[in-house]
């Protein structure tokens, strides 16, 4: 039996196509990114080799570290929000009435493109005519915050749409995972007298822990490299208050003609992702886990 499952040819057949794709389309660009980082290049003219200068500048760059911090905060909030999504999924996956319809409705925002989401939330945050401040006005709030224009709160304000954007994504995954839990196990527990909460915590959650750990990883890395809404809604402003690594990289490379430096930032992002992933996997390690 072992030999059937160790057939080298089959293994190669099954993994090589995908491996080839990512080696060519992802790893070559990663390599080139690091390589461009060694250059003084505006993206237009000639490249000039300057060794590790960009990387040294990067390490001392205050803007880079503040944007890293912002990305890191996003990762923390995103991971925390996973618990909320898990709770919602638990409810949806239980056999309460209407869960089917609710599930479908809850996932709808997932279908929206970033363009639509950006437009919607900018209307919500508009300081004068926006939905938020109009509502606050009804409650008698005199001077509501100016949200995206306020450097103190812009970061937290922009986190809301970002995290909301992925609600559907995680709920979908948790829901599928929960539905995967065999009915018999749940039935048996019920007969044993377990109440819904006990079933949730002692049976369902442990059985989907593998999936949950994967989503933590996805949330962390996804947050670290997040770009879309930040760039469209705040441009990283005001004055860098909501800058994240990916938007900083884009600006330097594409807007400021510092392509070499931008590439170095991109490579730095990658390294930070690696470190964070390793840290996260250490923190969520359990004895029988397959180590990534």
């Amino acid at each position: 039996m072992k030999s059937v499952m160790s057939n080298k040819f089959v293994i190669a057949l099954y993994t090589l196509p995908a491996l080839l794709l990512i080696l060519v389309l992802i790893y070559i660009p990663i390599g080139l990114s690091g390589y461009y980082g060694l250059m003084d290049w505006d993206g237009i003219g000639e490249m000039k080799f300057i060794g590790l200068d960009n990387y040294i500048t990067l390490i001392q760059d205050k803007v880079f570290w503040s944007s890293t911090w912002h990305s890191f905060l996003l990762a923390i909030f995103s991971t925390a929000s996973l618990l909320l999504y898990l709770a919602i999924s638990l409810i949806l996956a239980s056999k309460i009435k209407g869960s089917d319809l609710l599930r479908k409705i809850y996932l709808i925002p997932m279908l929206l493109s970033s363009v639509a989401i950006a437009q919607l939330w900018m209307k919500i945050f508009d300081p004068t005519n926006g939905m938020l401040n109009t509502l606050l006005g009804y409650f008698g709030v005199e001077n509501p915050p100016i949200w995206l224009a306020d450097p103190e709160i812009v970061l937290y304000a922009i986190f809301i749409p970002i995290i909301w954007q992925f609600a559907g994504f995680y709920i979908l995954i948790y829901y599928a995972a929960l539905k995967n839990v065999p009915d018999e196990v749940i039935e048996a527990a019920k007969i044993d007298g377990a109440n819904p909460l006990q079933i949730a915590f002692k049976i369902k959650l442990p059985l989907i822990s593998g999936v949950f750990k994967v989503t933590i990883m996805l949330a962390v890395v996804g947050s670290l490299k997040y770009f879309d809404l930040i760039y469209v809604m705040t441009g990283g402003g005001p004055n860098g208050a909501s800058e994240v690594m990916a938007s900083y990289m884009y600006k330097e490379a594409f807007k400021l003609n510092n392509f070499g430096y931008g590439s170095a930032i991109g490579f730095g992002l990658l390294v930070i992702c690696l470190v964070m992933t390793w840290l996260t996997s250490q923190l969520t390690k359990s004895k029988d886990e397959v180590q990534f």
Partner: protein
Amino acid sequence: MSEVRTQQVTPSLSTEKPKKSFLNKIGFGFLYLLLGGFAIVQIYPLIWLLFFSLKTNKEVFGMSPFSLPQDPQWGNYTKAWTSGNIGVYFFNSVWITISAVILTVILASLVTFAVTRMNWKLSGPVLGLFLVAYMIPLHSTLIPLFKMYNSTNLTDNPLSLILSYTAFNLPLTIMILLGFYKTFPREIEEAAVMDGCSVHRIFFQITLPMTVPVLSTTAIINMIYNWNEFVFVNTFISSDKWKTLTVGINNFVGQYLTDWGAIGATLVISIVPILLAFLFLSDKIVEGMAAGSVKG
């Protein structure tokens, strides 16, 4: 399988029942209130988008976003449909998305199967390679990829999109599949091997059907990503005949003036097919469970 314990439950609760069910009702009522509230929050964007697409530019700004369009501008839809080649963009979006999704899901399944079910020393490192591939920021790859496609004459060719989407979605898809594959017991497959099945039979006829729910899940995720993808299309494609809907939206973003109503209409048009596909696939998540659960 856990033991089936018999227990007489009902009689001792006869006096407690009325109280419990009342509390229960309040609890449930409150729960439904919360759930319903959240549902409104989730469906509101769609309604808002619809209204948005029917407003004039003037209403979009300045007026309260809660307001209904005063004079529904159905013309926005006509404009969206006839300006530029939206029919072509639509068709391209559809087949490029489907192709990439199928390719991704199949390749990812093959890899995840090999990594979790087959015995080989390199499975860990290979998985690691896929994981690390997830970490690259999109824009870092633009120029290298463009150069590569350019030198292989694949620019302005939808193949560049399908391959790129697949490559970029593989890590994510594999990671999700991985989480699920681990929860499937290996006994069935081991039994099949003892029965003399080849690996291919095991994969296609046993494992794959078992994973339909998670395949639907990843299919939905991939589909949404590909459908709304924008940067690659913009960079690799130049001819109108290969462009997709997302780029079509930008037709309405002017140099100094943006036609928001038409953009809204285009967004609504582009969300319809994916909404339908989503509703279709999301049922599969539950269906697959009933049909494919193989336990005991």
